[in-house]
């Protein structure tokens, strides 16, 4: 059965591998028989991945494959950015800034919530 899945990227890149293995998982979820729908949210220490200069080399292939399958949102939480003193003009274009209130709505709206 097709499900709506929220991937929360919450660990700091790049000290742990989740930032890219989570995206590998997203690809897998979207390309299986059930064609699950995925939204990616970066919050907490995970917000650093949204920085323009953060190295996307290891994960670029997954991001491209994801785009080929379906339009997918990469959201970063405003409060997480604020707490880390990151301004919106420091962010890579692929990310859209949302407030925690929006993520709460996404949690309500998705069937499954993974933390990566």
């Amino acid at each position, binding site marked *: *059965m097709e499900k709506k899945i929220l991937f929360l990227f919450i660990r700091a890149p790049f000290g742990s591998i989740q930032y890219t293995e989570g995206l590998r998982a997203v690809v897998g979820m979207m*390309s299986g028989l059930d064609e699950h729908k995925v939204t990616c949210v970066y919050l907490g220490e995970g917000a650093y991945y949204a920085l323009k200069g953060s190295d996307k080399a290891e994960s670029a292939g997954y991001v491209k494959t994801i785009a080929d399958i379906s339009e997918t949102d990469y959201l970063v939480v405003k409060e997480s950015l604020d707490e880390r003193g990151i301004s919106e003009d420091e962010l890579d274009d692929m990310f859209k800034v949302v407030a925690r209130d929006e993520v709460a709505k996404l949690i309500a709206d998705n069937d499954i919530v993974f933390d990566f």
Partner: protein
Amino acid sequence: MANINFLLTEGPFQTEKWATAAKIAGAALKKGHSVSFFCYLDGIYNGLSTQKFADWEKVPGDYYKELVEAGAKIVCCGICVNARGQQDGQFFYEGIKVGGIPDWAAFVGEADRVVTL
């Protein structure tokens, strides 16, 4: 009865997650629910039949063997298995399978609930 999928991303001993997941899954199976595991990243080390630790009566692998015997489906990410040098899972307990993310996506499709640990 519900179908619960566990995503296990950490290995035995180092953190407690292998134990917590096994205990929740064991309780779920006893209540008659269906249980599946996808072992991803370091999670794949949990299925090894070769763990030996004299201080403990049972090693983590034993708990996962028992879960399989109680009806849990356990699949380990093959890319992770070979990246981590575990040779196609040749030393895993029987019934602990090597597969891929598509297996996990299928588990998730069937699952009523997903627990990540």
